[in-house]
């Protein structure tokens, strides 16, 4: 096995791995018991996406939490943002989502939330991992073991109420949008149908909204995985199409022509809408398009950049009191007025609201955004390779502004490149952006050339 870490990873982002040989029930149970020990006795919310291994891991996690003396609130199959919002709304001690998000079906993972329904910050996470490794868990005695309660109704209701408070529902309803949906048979399948057709009065054309069936496509919602959704949009002359990932935090959007909109443009749209309505600053990760800076500048607002990872973005958003943020390439919109987490429901509501407000087709709204071209790539990571590579790149581009907070990002006034090690796979990720296709191709080509040098 060349890359053991690929199959199982226990670290600051929680625990994640291929179910069976690698991610075992004993590991999940022990990690949950560490979590229960860390957050203390009290209520802990547990939910999951629709993966086949989900019930098994939920039993393991429930066992670990009960053994630590926690009371478990089972919310069943639920989108991750729904779980996070429910944790904060019910003042629980913390929450656990059993989901490997956009990763393939054979993976599963635990996402961990604090009492406010936020990802643990960096310091909390490393404390928890130390606790796990020390194995010095709280061990509840018989009389200290609490019960499991279920709540399958309130979490989604609370979530949708929060989202709807920030859009004009009657205006959206009055447009009778034709909407296509690809729920990947994920945790959001049922809720999304209810949300779009009943709550927002859209004419819904949905595929893959059966939570009991396996994932219908590669779970990550990307242009190359959303062909069926694009066809659905074209065939039914829909105004818009939405593609979710299995746990409903990521969102991809298809315009009325059947084109999958670049994730960075979806985020840029959301930033534009939110800044028009509520003044404040923006936080995005280093790999997100600089279109965000252009938009923020139009509103006289500041953009903060963070290392890649939702937890990093949310941490800075909390610190600076940002009004909107996200991760462009990861398809995540974070709108803290609803909750400081990636949320596809907030994304769908904002897009529909913007279309309703302007009366313009989606393609026209996207055309108004600052235009940049991006190119991504990856190379196999070898230990010790990133450091020398960063020196080579810095030396090759002495005139660029350099940022070493997550790998290396080199910036020029209208273009940038970013090289970083993946948190989840043994890969170096490369990204470049420039105002024209030719410029980005040239820039990317130079990076690849330099990357291949030893």
């Amino acid at each position: 096995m060349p890359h053991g870490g690929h199959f199982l990873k226990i670290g600051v982002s929680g625990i994640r791995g291929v179910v069976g040989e690698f991610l075992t029930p004993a590991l999940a149970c022990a990690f949950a018991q560490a979590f229960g020990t860390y957050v203390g006795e009290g209520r802990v919310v547990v939910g999951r996406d629709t993966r086949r291994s989900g019930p098994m891991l939920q039993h393991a996690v429930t066992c670990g939490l009960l053994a630590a003396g926690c009371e478990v609130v089972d919310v069943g199959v639920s989108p991750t943002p729904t779980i996070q919002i429910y944790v904060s709304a019910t003042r629980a001690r913390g929450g656990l989502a059993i989901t490997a998000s956009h990763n393939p079906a054979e993976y599963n993972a635990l996402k961990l939330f604090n009492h406010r329904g936020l990802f643990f910050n960096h310091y909390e996470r490393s404390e928890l991992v130390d606790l796990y490794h020390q194995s010095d868990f709280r061990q509840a005695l018989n009389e200290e073991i609490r019960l499991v309660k279920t709540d399958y109704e309130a979490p989604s209701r609370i979530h949708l109420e929060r989202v709807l408070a920030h859009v004009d529902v009657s205006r959206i309803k009055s447009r009778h949008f034709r909407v296509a949906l690809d729920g990947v048979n994920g945790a959001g399948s049922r809720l999304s149908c209810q949300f779009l057709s009943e709550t927002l009065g859209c004419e819904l054309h949905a595929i893959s909204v059966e939570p009991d069936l396996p994932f219908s496509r590669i779970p990550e919602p990307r242009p190359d995985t959303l062909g069926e959704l694009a066809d659905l949009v074209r065939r039914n002359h829909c105004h818009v199409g939405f593609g979710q990932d299995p746990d409903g935090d990521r969102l991809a959007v298809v315009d009325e022509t059947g084109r999958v909109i670049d994730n960075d443009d979806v985020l840029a749209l959301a930033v534009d809408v939110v800044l028009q309505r509520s003044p404040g600053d923006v936080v995005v990760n280093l790999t997100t398009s600089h279109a965000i800076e252009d938009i923020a500048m139009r509103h006289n607002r500041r953009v903060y950049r963070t290392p890649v990872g939702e937890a990093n973005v949310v941490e800075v958003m909390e610190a600076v009191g940002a009004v909107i943020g996200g991760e462009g390439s990861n398809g995540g919109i974070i709108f803290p007025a609803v909750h400081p987490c990636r949320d596809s429901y907030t994304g769908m509501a904002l897009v529909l609201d913007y279309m309703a407000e302007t009366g313009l087709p989606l393609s026209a709204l996207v055309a108004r955004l600052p235009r940049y071209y991006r190119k991504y790539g990856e190379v196999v990571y070898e230990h010790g390779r990133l450091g020398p590579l960063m020196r080579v790149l810095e030396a090759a581009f002495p005139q660029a502004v350099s940022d070493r907070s997550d790998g290396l990002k080199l910036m020029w006034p209208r273009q940038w490149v970013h090289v970083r090690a993946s948190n989840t796979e043994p890969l170096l990720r490369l990204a470049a952006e420039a105002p024209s296709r030719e410029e980005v191709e040239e820039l990317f080509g130079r990076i690849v050339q330099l990357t291949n040098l030893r």
Partner: protein
Amino acid sequence: MRRVAPRSLRISQVGLRGVVGSAMTAAHILDFASAFGMFLEADGPIVIGRDPRASGVMIRHGVIAALLACGRDVIDLGIVSTPVVQHAIRGLEAAGGISIGASHNTADWNALKFLGPRGIYLSTAEASELLDIYHLKKFRFVEWNRVGTLRLWDEAVDAYLDELAAVYDFSSLRRFKVVVDCCNGTSSLVLRRLNDRFGFRFILINEKMEGVWFAHEPSTTQSIVELQLAPLVKPLGADAGFLFDADSDRVAVATENGCAVSEELVLPMLADHLLLHGPGKLVITNLSTTGLVDEVARWHGGKVVRVPVGRQAAMDALTSYPPEEIAIAGEGTGAVMMPQFRFVYDGIAAMLAILTMLDERGKKLSEILASYPRFSILKGQVPLASQQIPALLMKLQRLYSDGIPNVQDGLRIDWPDRWFHIRVSQTEPIVRLICEQRGDPPQALFDSLLEQLRSFA
């Protein structure tokens, strides 16, 4: 360092047993259940059930997770007695089962009891293989798309009662007025159903299933029967009183006069009943059980097979005789197996058999008991370090060389009408002394043996 009381965790061929939290943890449960999922060779689902202890909820989730990960489908019966789990395994043609519950132990304990196909406790050989898999900790889990699924089944009690109804004549037994101390355990489920569905007249006390606070220790000993049950029988005009431990595999008895019956008498009484009916002539019991069993067996031309103390030895003995030769198996703790349900210690089936006996003989319980010769048993215990035990046993064997020695389990010496048995406790750092004599108590022998034991301590 967390302080753990000595011997509050027992991992042995009997399974996993311990004080939850301070000794037995979620990790033990996951590992043991994973080992069991891997150990069972037959295809088919695995049946689980639990007693009402609070820790059972936590253990249930751990057991389910491990079995699903082993690719096993799980059928959960919820809170039920161990005999119900055993019957369900057979009825559902399951590969095996796990009964979660610590039986007669106090509420802070819990345990996993492992059951093979047809609800049979594992043999010594099977149990030691399971133990090896557990210790090796190299569990095989299935790939993500072959993980098992969980099903809940709430008809197990009714299915169990159907089987009992096929053996016992409910229409004549339900006339008896019976008081039952349920010890806050699972027997209330079954008995309430017997009342509702079949018109029995069980009056239940301590019938609320409790997770944390039991009204008293759920132990089927004479002294526990005396606490609450025995004083109620006569005022209520009942024909008998019965008491069940938390998972209803053991039974204790009180007479219609309100006398708590020695737990030693349940087996001889039922042996008397079953040897009469035949065809089986064998009584399987352990070395510490009353000599009245031998006496009763002689009346009916039966034979007593004595094995070391513990469920495992009894199971091994059961499997080594043809089923039709066995009249009954059991121990002096109130755990007995009816021949129709060969591998199931079942307190409720034992109760129904005793009621059948009353019905057939047309006698009161106290009259039946009065017909047996008197044996007097004395029991004691002495703390002793393990390393001294072999020397002690050798010394006693030499000292009492006029008797017939048996060294299968500690030391037992027999004389006509008198015997003693010294054995090492499986659960505490003590040796137990049991001494019995026909007629009056063997006080002098008992005292001198205690003296010998203390001089070694």
